[in-house]
């Protein structure tokens, strides 16, 4: 036991003596560790973010089409718009016996790049995320008047909106010159607390408001010569005709397959009920090959780092030949020499892995907020997860294995040299 400790100390002192060269080795291993862990962190947290946003929803119902497209568009405001479904169908679903709640969503408009979502007051009471968490209003109240808007946390913070501010919605989405609903400005009535989900990056108005701003529009443009002033809109019927999707919560989750089957077989409209988890699995399998390519790449970087380690130790062996002979003369066995060299490479890899983990933590601390606001990526600063520990273990194990190459070389050398190592 004390012998191992002594050899470990000897390996440390030898490595410290060559810290100039070896720090570069540690740096390259740290770099590859950061890459490996960072990849894993981004991968799992992206998944977590997606899953959290739909974790309280049993089904997403929309017009028949691509399941993934519907989910991405309706919940995550990503990708291409899907066909609309009839409002009557949405009501029919809401009245099903097995349905606990529904949240209708109507998308299409935007404001400064953020999606505008038409919905009902149920959104604020029924939507939940991250398992059982409900939406909270940081300020104000849900929309009440027709031209009231509730802002997601990020919309408010990025555009510096406060309660009572007036803003104008754009027709359609994207960054091109969009037609503006200038004639019907909205007033900020509430601001949601941050959730870490796409909810933060959207604006919420009532379904009636969605109808109201489009009364005098047709085919994506105002109808010439026909203009309805905001105070006149209530004279028209503001009941929606169609919406994008309905989020559905069931009374009993076990009913989900039966409910899905029945909705898919709806006689009056070609509907589609999507289980969010299933659709996300489709997404993951689409992304898998890309993920794998990145993973292979970061392991290759790790291999390059370890090759550097082997090269550095091998290069140093020549000038340490004498030192090893001295240790042999003092009673070290060739196996002691192997242990010494293995300790050295393992020390370097462990140091590199720790430095890489620390570097990742530092990067997340500095750039995490940027990623969250810029890409909606919530990369939280946590202790390494089980999967990350496994990766770290993999790096150290690979480093130990790679270190056996110079150790074997030193073993052969010390057997051949005996006491006569040339200087």
């Amino acid at each position, binding site marked *: 036991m004390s012998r191992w400790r002594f050899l470990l100390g000897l390996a440390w002192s030898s490595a410290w003596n060559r810290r100039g060269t070896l720090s570069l080795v540690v740096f390259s291993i740290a770099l590859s560790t950061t890459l490996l862990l960072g990849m894993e962190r981004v991968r799992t947290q992206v998944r977590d973010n997606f899953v959290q946003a739909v974790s309280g929803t049993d089904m997403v119902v929309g017009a028949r089409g691509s399941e993934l497209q519907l989910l991405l568009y309706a919940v995550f405001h990503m990708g291409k718009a899907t066909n609309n479904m009839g409002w009557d169908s949405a009501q029919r679903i809401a009245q099903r016996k097995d349905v606990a709640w529904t949240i209708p969503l109507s998308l299409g408009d935007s404001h400064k790049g953020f999606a505008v979502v038409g919905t009902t007051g149920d959104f604020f009471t029924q939507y939940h995320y991250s398992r059982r968490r409900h939406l909270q209003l940081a300020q104000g109240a849900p929309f009440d008047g027709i031209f009231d808007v509730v802002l997601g946390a990020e919309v408010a913070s990025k555009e510096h909106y406060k309660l009572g501010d007036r803003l104008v919605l754009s027709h359609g989405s994207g960054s091109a010159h969009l037609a503006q609903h200038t004639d019907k400005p909205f007033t900020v009535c509430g601001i949601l607390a941050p959730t870490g989900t796409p909810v933060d990056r959207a604006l919420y108005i009532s379904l009636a408001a969605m109808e109201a701003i489009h009364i005098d529009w047709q085919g994506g443009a105002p109808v010439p010569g026909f203009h309805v002033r905001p105070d006149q809109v209530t004279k028209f019927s503001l009941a929606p005709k169609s919406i994008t999707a309905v989020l559905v919560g069931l009374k009993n989750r076990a009913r989900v397959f039966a409910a899905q089957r029945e909705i898919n077989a709806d006689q009056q409209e070609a509907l589609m009920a999507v289980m969010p988890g299933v659709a996300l699995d489709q997404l993951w399998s689409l992304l898998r090959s890309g993920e794998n390519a990145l993973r292979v790449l970061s392991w290759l970087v790790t291999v390059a780092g370890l090759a550097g380690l082997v090269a550095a130790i091998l290069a140093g062996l020549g000038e340490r030949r004498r030192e090893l002979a*001295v240790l042999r003369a*003092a*009673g070290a066995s*060739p196996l002691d020499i192997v242990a010494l060299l293995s300790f050295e490479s393992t020390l370097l890899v462990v140091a590199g892995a720790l430095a890489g983990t620390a570097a990742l933590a530092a990067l997340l601390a500095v750039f995490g907020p940027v990623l969250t606001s810029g890409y909606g990526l919530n990369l939280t600063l946590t202790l390494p997860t089980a999967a990350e520990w496994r990766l770290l273990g993999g790096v150290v194990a690979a480093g130990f294995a790679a270190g056996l190459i110079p150790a074997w070389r030193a073993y052969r050398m010390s057997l051949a040299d005996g006491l006569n190592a040339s200087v």
Partner: protein
Amino acid sequence: MNAGEQAVLLENCTFCWPGQKEETLRIPMFSVGKGETVFLSGPSGGGKSTLLSLIAGILQPSSGSVRVNGIRVDTLPRFARDSFRGDTIGLIFQQFNLVPHLSMLDNVLLPCRFSPKRATRATEKDGSPEQSAQRLLERLGLGPELWRKSVTRLSVGQQQRVAAARALVGSPPLVMADEPTSALDAERRADFLHLLLRESAEAGSSLLFVSHDLSLANFFERRVRLAGINKADISRADKGTNPQGETA
């Protein structure tokens, strides 16, 4: 001759480097008595270092037996040989004796780290291996101000004295020195030799001192020429006895 009374006893020993036809050594009989000081001389490349490696159990004889302190070194299993060497033999080389990244004290303590027996003997003698190392260093003229320092800035003479302290720590029964004075100037040479003789006597160690410098021979109880004990025809053998390129 009673093997138990000898620190070193070689009988009918031959050694041949792998891949070479000619024997480097053929020694019918060679011994060093317990507590005896022996001066072994011979030309460079004559097989002196090979003989020391045989005694240290780092090389194996092609035939015959090698006994150190009565134990057959040549038939010990490999790991037992390494620990036996650590327990029993202190070694001093011509130069570059020290591990550059260790302090002077840690260099001296190396054998006690690898050999619990040496550590125990040092503790019995001085209370602890550290105290033993400090005593030896002081007696060899290396003061406490140098102990914790790196050894790389020491003069060659100081380095050889550190090596002597390391060879002597824990009182090994046998100390072998391979041309330890050849890197020293004449004045330092005699100084070093006296220190080494005095301290090995104090430790009760036998001393096998290899050198081609015959001016030192008179200080020893017995003088042996390698040519006198080696019956191998080295004139026909490859002069560079060691394929690794021995530097003697």
